[in-house]
Structures are given as structure tokens and as C-alpha cells.
């Protein structure tokens, strides 16, 4: 119990690091995933191929390998950024592949007739997309995206092992200061539970509010 009270600021810093990493990487993943999904449904062949390769490769890449390649590899090309930014880049790109698939399958659940009806009413492409297809796709996309973002929050723990400030990394200084390892891990676990359960609560609310009635 003492571990938490004595080192509250240390834990706070770690939790904040994890939350920051999760939020920034989520934003990157959502944007990139959306772009890739639009590539994958585009009527242009080369963009479709690019999107497919992006998704297939990143989905099958071990995240540790990606971190290894990005954090230790990019500096060889003279790209020197803070480690946290590298971590956001690796996490965001990795997760974007899963977001892309979620969005794409969401778009594919919208019946073709919806788009045909919209166009026969004289709607432009932007209107069809924004007023007809995306709102319907959004509904069926909520649970898979929630699941993906929970996975992202959990994956951010890997960044701690590559010297980025985050929650799991907290155990090291505590260990050196001689605190009980078991208790320091229990509080780390509680921290992660707070993050993941918050995300799942948010998405449960979204699902209740906007989800498809089952």
C-alpha cells in the first residue's frame, strides 16, 4: 500500500505517459486508418494495392519488431526525434492497419442500394459519402474500433521497454529503491485497468447511443 502513497508522483507521471501515448497514437491511427480505408475502397487500382499491402504487412508485423526497427533504425537515416514521438509513430502506424480494416468492413456493410438511392436523388459524391454511407458505417464500426483502441492502450506498454516514460516502466526505479515488487506491480496493473476500462466504458456508451439495434 505504501508504494503508491510514497511514489504517487512517479505513478502519476507513468499513468500520464501511458494516457498521452494512447491518445496521440489513437489520433494518428484513426486518421491514417481512415485514409488507408479510403484507399482500399478507391476506384484507383494502385491506391487499392498500396492500402492492401500496408494493411497486410502491418497486421502481421510483431509490434516489438516495429518498435525495434523504428526506434533504433530511423536514427540511422539521420531522423532524430524524441523517443516518445517515435513510439507514437510506431504504435499509430501499427494500429492504423486494424482501424482501416474495421472502417472498410463497416463501409461494406452498407447495402449497395443505399448509395444507388442517394445518387438517383441527385446527391453528389460528397453528400452520398457524408450523409448516407458514413453515418451508417459508423454504427457498425464502434465495437471493433473500441476493441482496437483497447489493444493500442495495452500495446503502449512495449514503449516503456524502449525508454519512453509510461506506466510499466515505473517498476524499475521502485525496484531499485527497494519497494516490494509485487505491490508495485499490483498498482501498475490497477493503472492499466483504469485506462482500458475507461476506453471500454466510453465505447459502451457510444455503442448504446449510436450502435445498430440488435
Amino acid at each position, binding site marked *: 500500500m505504501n508504494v503508491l502513497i510514497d511514489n504517487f508522483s512517479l505513478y502519476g507521471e507513468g499513468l500520464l505517459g501511458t494516457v498521452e501515448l494512447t491518445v496521440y497514437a489513437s489520433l494518428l491511427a484513426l486518421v491514417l486508418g481512415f485514409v488507408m480505408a479510403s484507399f482500399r475502397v478507391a476506384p*484507383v487500382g494502385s491506391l487499392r494495392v498500396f492500402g492492401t499491402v500496408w494493411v497486410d504487412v502491418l497486421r502481421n508485423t510483431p*509490434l*516489438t519488431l516495429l518498435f525495434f526497427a523504428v526506434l533504433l533504425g530511423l536514427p540511422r*537515416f539521420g531522423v532524430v526525434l524524441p523517443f516518445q514521438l517515435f513510439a507514437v509513430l510506431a504504435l499509430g502506424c501499427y494500429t492504423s492497419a486494424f482501424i482501416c480494416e474495421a472502417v472498410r468492413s463497416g463501409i461494406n456493410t452498407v447495402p449497395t442500394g443505399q*448509395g444507388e438511392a442517394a445518387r438517383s436523388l441527385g446527391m453528389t459524391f460528397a453528400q452520398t459519402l457524408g450523409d448516407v*454511407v458514413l453515418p451508417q458505417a459508423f454504427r457498425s464500426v464502434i*465495437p*471493433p474500433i473500441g476493441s482496437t483502441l483497447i489493444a493500442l492502450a*495495452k500495446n503502449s506498454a*512495449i514503449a516503456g521497454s524502449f525508454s519512453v516514460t509510461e506506466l510499466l516502466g515505473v517498476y524499475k526505479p521502485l525496484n531499485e529503491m527497494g519497494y516490494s515488487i509485487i505491490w508495485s506491480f499490483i498498482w501498475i496493473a490497477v493503472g492499466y485497468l483504469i485506462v482500458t476500462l475507461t476506453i471500454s466504458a466510453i465505447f459502451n456508451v457510444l455503442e448504446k447511443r449510436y450502435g445498430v439495434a440488435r
Partner: protein
Amino acid sequence: MTSTALYDVPGPLTRRRHFVYGLVSTAVILALLGWILYLLFDTNQFTAAKWRPFEYEGIQELLLRGLGNTLKAFAYAAVLSLALGGLLACGRLSVHRPLRWVATLVVEFFRAMPVLVMIFFIFVALKVQPLPALVTGLTLYNGSVLAEVFRTGVNSVERGQREAAYSLGMYKTQVMSYVLVPQALRAMLPTIISQLVVALKDTSLGFLITYEEFLHAGKLIAGNLNYDLPFIPVVMIISPIYIGMCMLLSWFANWISKRQKRNPKTEAVEVADAEPGTLLPGVGPQV
């Protein structure tokens, strides 16, 4: 191209426009690839000194041993997490309330916890060797996710099947083992294999607890000053092998999914797509 709600069948004018878009985007993608290739040459990644180490037998053996260790960890983790998943699914589907509660608690806890935290806990706090620590962590996590997959599978079998079995006078265990589980397994096989892909990918976490797996072998070579620190060549050799293994397993899951959808034995149940189990508590895999 699969038909979506987004576009009409293109006419001649649109086809010409799409052709121009295609040319432009191809040019951009090729330019991007060319730039990366230029960077690689510019920073001397293709010099003979950096690639020579891979000709040595000792280094090839080091890499192969690493790959073997990765596959060993995967094999243990896969078998054990399937067993644990089955056990926990039995608990969650049990008619005895305390058993159900315990199983639910275990499943929800381990699904919400990062697998790396568990591995570090077992490795650092319980002072276990790297391989058992890695395998235990992977088993707890993937076992819990698989338990949910099994449970969703059993629950997704049409209700009439269970009712018919009971009305034939079968016992609870018989209904499960002769009627529900065989159909559920067929339906969930793609998801189960996709979850095993996750386990295979996560064996690379062993690298972080000094387990001597594939990535670890790569790092040893990459840090060697004698060969001019061949980091990029190492990545270029390791990633295709790693990603290739995972892709192979993913394609297998996809193939099974397509095959099972055509199988007459899955008429009373919907076969899942090849996607790993969901992490959102209370929501089954996307069917």
C-alpha cells in the same frame, strides 16, 4: 473491385479520369519507394562489409537458433492457451454460478491487462526463467481471449440445435460435446487461428525479457562493430521471415474461413471472419 455503396459503374469519361488518377498515384508511390531506396544507398546500407556477416555459418546458426526458440515459445503458448481457453470457456458456460463468476473474473482481468505487464510480473517479481515467463504470460492472455471466442461460438449455434438435442433425451454434457461444440469449433476456427497469429507475434515480447529468440539474435549481430553495425541489413533479413510466418498463418485462417462457409456442416451457425478475438468486454467477435 468489390461493389460498394460508394460508386456507380463508371462510364467512359470516369474511366479515363480514374486512369489519370491511377497514373498519378502510381508515380507518387514509385517516387516514395525510390526515395527510400535512395536513402538506403545514401547511408551506405548495401556495402559489402555490412552484409558479409550473413555469409558466416556461426551467424546463420545464431539466427536459426533464435528462430527455433521463437517457434518453441509459440508452440508451447499455442497448445497451453488452447487448453486454458477450453477450461475457462467451460467455467463461463457452467450452470454453477460460483464457477461462472470465477471464470468471468479471470477472463475479464487477463483480457484487460497488457500481456507485457504479466510477462514482466512473472519474470521480475516471481523470478522465473525467460521462456516459462513468456509462455505463461502469453497463455494467460490468449487463453482468456480464446475462452471468450469459444463461448461466443457455442452461443452462436442456433437455439433449435440445443433444444432438439435436449428433447432427444441427451444429457447436458452430451449436448455440449456432440452437438454444440463441434459446430462452434467449425464456426470459430478462423478466429482461433487468427488469435494464434497474435500469440506468434507476441512471442517477440520475449526480446524484452532477454529470452534468446529471433529478435534477440538479430540485435546481437546488429551491435557488432566488426561488421560496421549492420542494423538495417539485420532488419531487412529478420522482418520478411517474421512477417512471412505470421502472414502464412493469417492466410491459412482466411482459407479456413472461406472453406467453412461453404461447408454444409456449418448451416446452423455463422462462420466468423478471420479476425482475432475482440477485447471489448461483453461484445463477441464480429460475425
